[in-house]
């Protein structure tokens, strides 16, 4: 064998390609996959503008029309994936009595900065008042949602 391709060089190269590369590949895959899962479960917080847009877009999927004069009164984040938002809508006319405030539930689990999911629309409710039938809505949020509805 030529000195330039010494036995040590060949053995070292094979060791790198056959043993070290797969091990490093596996470690990197594990680290990046867990980071992706972490990012999926803990997305960045959403602004009130994004939440309001999410509600307005979500209403179309519920075959509900936005009154066109909808505003977000407040929002609270639960378990990083969920938001309880309080929406104020005008029914028509200009008096304050025509304004209706109601809670809605928005989910942020699409791993997409432009996509929020309206799970319970303003004025809507869960089929069972104390569970979300495996949608994963945190119980603290459900309790708060029911409390806001009762306070109306």
């Amino acid at each position, binding site marked *: 064998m030529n000195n330039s391709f010494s036995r040590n060089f060949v053995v070292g190269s094979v060791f*790198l390609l056959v043993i070290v590369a797969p091990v490093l590949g596996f470690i990197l895959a594990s680290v990046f996959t867990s980071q992706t899962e972490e990012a999926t479960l803990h997305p960045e917080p959403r602004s009130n503008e994004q939440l309001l847009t999410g509600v307005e877009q979500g209403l179309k999927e519920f075959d509900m029309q936005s009154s066109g004069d909808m505003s977000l009164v407040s929002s609270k984040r639960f378990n990083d994936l969920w938001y309880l938002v309080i929406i104020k809508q005008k029914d028509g006319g200009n008096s304050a009595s025509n304004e209706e405030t109601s809670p809605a539930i928005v989910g942020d689990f699409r791993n997409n900065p432009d996509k929020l999911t309206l799970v319970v629309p303003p004025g809507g409710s869960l089929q069972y008042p104390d569970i979300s039938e*495996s949608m994963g809505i945190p119980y603290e949020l459900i309790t708060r949602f029911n409390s806001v509805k009762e306070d109306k």
Partner: protein
Amino acid sequence: MLYEYLIKGRVVIVALLFLLSIGLWYSIFSGVVATDRNTGMQSDNLSGASYNKTAVNSDRSINPLAPYFVGFEHLRESGITNENQLYIKDLITNYVLYEKEKVYAKVSYVDGSLTGPKINGLDMTYVFTIGINDSKDAEVSLASNVVTKSKTISIKPLNGEKTLKKTFTVAEPN
């Protein structure tokens, strides 16, 4: 002449091959680690039930991160009502997402693990084991009060971690 180039650049060539090899193995393992890419009907190891692997990995519900349940029809056959199953699955969903922090998980009823009903005063109790992604994970118990209709569900991890317990009082659908 080519041979001379190979000799001179041998370290660079091995380094490039090494990097390419890491990239290749990374792409292979990232597919394996992220989700099992298999599709179609498969048999579940823990429950023995058949399930659609495509559904486990796909966008199947309002919350796509929520777990997929396999073998839970056995609970109904053993007398656990549909409504009680709804509550059990709901608590398991919260457990898997927020305690275990697992997404797109497969939750299996462990075949043969169900005991009950045991009558204790006004409570009727069932206990069974669940697995997550083919590993046995926790013991689930349901105690439903035959008079008040309240139900207490607890999920006790087999690894000794803290038990998740919740009591539901009224279950009248809207």
